[in-house]
């Protein structure tokens, strides 16, 4: 049976992330934590593969102890086993340290066929952990997958969305893919699946449970420093043209001609 691993992150449950201008950190007050929306597509795709061909799905997350509930939610969505990597030594990790730590957690699972990650997390928005994890594990990867056409014993055939269209690609397994929201419509849990998930046991993995280099995890293993978080300025100047239709057309053509001269 195929083994699929889905990487899942807990993020603030809102479409509008607000940051504290003084501390540059995300304001989490009054905002419930949820599964990173992109990861819900990863979970759904894994579950669809399971429904088609049979598979065992691991859901792995690195985070704070309360992320256990989030992994139970992932179980209610079709994950077979949740693993939470949580330890003070993992705290403050950037994408590099996160990928390293996750790779150590995945090594514990043993052999696998496919890792699916969401394209990016909605809080950090880097889209780096997926590719970085693949490099750390030394396996092939493809980002921005919008469709899995076929998955066979030793290869996966899929579509990658690009700025210009799609690329059709074949990757040898084991491999990692990151998925975009076009790939599916994630299902919601049912009362039945939630009842089962609540009874499920999430495996907790601490630093001592993995063979890791302490210098490469958490804050110590993170070369990235956030100096400033800000919303990029987006200035739009609006000129309202008034008058009769002829006057408006005249003024508009004047403006457009001037613009062309500026460009030239």
């Amino acid at each position, binding site marked *: 049976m195929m083994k699929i691993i889905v990487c899942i992150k807990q993020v603030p*449950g809102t479409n509008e992330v607000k940051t504290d201008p003084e501390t540059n950190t995300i304001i989490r007050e009054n905002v419930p934590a949820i599964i990173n929306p992109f990861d819900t597509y990863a979970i759904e795709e894994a579950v669809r593969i399971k429904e088609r061909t049979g598979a065992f799905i691991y859901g792995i997350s690195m985070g704070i102890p309360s992320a256990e509930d989030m992994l139970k939610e992932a179980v209610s969505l079709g994950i077979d086993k949740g693993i939470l990597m949580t330890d003070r030594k993992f705290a403050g990790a950037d994408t590099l340290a996160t990928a390293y730590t996750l790779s150590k957690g995945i090594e514990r699972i043993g052999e696998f066929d496919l890792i699916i990650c969401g394209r990016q997390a909605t809080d950090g928005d880097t889209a780096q952990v997926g590719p970085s994890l693949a490099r750390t594990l030394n396996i092939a990867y493809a980002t921005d997958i919008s469709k899995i056409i076929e998955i066979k014993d030793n290869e996966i055939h899929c579509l990658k969305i690009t700025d210009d269209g799609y690329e059709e690609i074949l990757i040898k397994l084991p491999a990692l893919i990151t998925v975009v929201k076009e790939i599916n419509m994630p299902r*919601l849990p*049912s009362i039945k699946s939630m009842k089962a998930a609540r009874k499920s046991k999430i495996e907790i993995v601490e630093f001592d449970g993995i063979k890791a280099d302490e210098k490469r995890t958490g804050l110590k293993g993170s070369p990235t420093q956030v100096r400033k978080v800000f919303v990029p300025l987006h200035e739009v100047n609006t000129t309202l043209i008034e008058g009769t239709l002829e006057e408006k057309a005249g003024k508009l053509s004047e403006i457009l001609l001037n613009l062309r001269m500026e460009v030239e």
Partner: protein
Amino acid sequence: MDIKFNQIYGEYLRDESRQVGRAESIVFPKTEAEIINSVKEMSRKNIPITSQGARTGLAASAVPYGGHIINLSKMNKVTGARYDEKEDRFFLTVQPGVLLSDLRKYIANKSFVAAEWDKESINALKFMEKGRWFYSTDPTETSASMGGIASCNASGARSYKYGSARDHITGLRLVLADGDVLVLKRGQYLAKDDEFSLITEGGREIKGKLPKYKMPHVKKNTSGYYNKPGMDMIDLFIGSDGTLGIISEIEIELNKTFDVIWGLTIFMPDEDKALDLVRALRHEIKIADINLNINPSAIEFFSHKALKMLRDRQKTSAFSNIQELKDTCHTAVYIEIESDSNELVWAEVEKLGDVINALGGDEEETWVAYNPINLEKLHDFRHACPECVNLEIDQIKKLNAGITKLGTDMSVPDDKLKDVMKMYNEGMEENKLDGVIFGHIGNNHLHVNIIPKDMDEYEKGKELFLIWAEKIAAMGGAVSAEHGVGKLKVPFLKKMYTEEEINEMRKLKKIFDPSQILNRGTIFEYVEGQ
């Protein structure tokens, strides 16, 4: 300045009812003074006036039958706030053109354009910071205007718990037909039995007698003027479809937000089981000896045909982003639960699962949303239903221009739920009409939308609606629960009230608008000399 009518303003002859009217001039006032000027001028010339908000109404209240249009969409400011410290109540004053969607955004972000606010209002905002608030009236169409919401006493899904617009309006400013202004605060003017007396800003006393007709015993009703001995007179104007005055300002009360809101869509194997589930949720019946303590803020319904329509439409791109419906999904009930704790809700949902199973359903056939993002998905799914109907009608309209939307808005008392569903289903079956049923089943208030294939079916549907209106009235129900009577439902109201009773309404209108220039043809026909 009034604008003479030309094609550019064609859209102002229509509203969401898809009816098209006619008019000679239109004005877009930005202040109450501009409304007064326009009203005075028209009143002098005896030209009828139709007032409009966002024109999202379904009963054609905003569709003009000739004359002048006062469109209030440019009066779209939140003009102040008030906080009652003793009772911890928060109020906002809004102009009639403020859109519900904008209001919600302002409240959620606690962000208002307050440059012209007075000191009390700015002070009140500080108290707003302490808690989280929301405006509970939630018609499906969020581009509705606040003036429109007050005019038709709108409600929506959450009215099951929170009541309709009326229950949250605490103040009104109205420009009367002669240009004088009437200011009403809740609690200020109470009728003495059936006699009332109001003082206008101009110092004029308006005295009168309330009609004798009795309103139906239903939770949702906006069929004709609100009328009850000893009533608060502000209630007469709420839901009066703009026929007594033009609203220039509304004070609304906000509610405190709960930290935890869950939404559940429950698929039942047939309609009867779905209705039993609704009755269990309302604590009318007990299933398998399970003590269900659930108190939903909304109970909504999707008929088998409604789900089929959504499933068919899902295949097109317009609705590809709504939750995927399995072929086995038959009838659905949607509920929303508010609480302070997830664990409290879960304890009830767990029992609800057992109730569903005991009723012959399957707790696996449910969608549970307990975070804002997933809740929005369920809201989108719900909203897709009327949107889908509109698309279907638009398509049919291309072949038969005379066809407009055929949707009901009637409510009945609790014990008549199964009877009314039977009436709807049998009525459509006997007449071989295709239609979908959805809406606020918690209040026995369902929207039946007939999808006619041709003019013949359209006429049949219209006749059927009249028959239903008569039966609903006999059940003690209301022919319009939240859309208002407008112009489309004038014939329905006649099934609910006698000619004499409707004449009483007309008499009441003439106390405020003697020449009947405001929203002529709305609630009752305009008959010269009457």
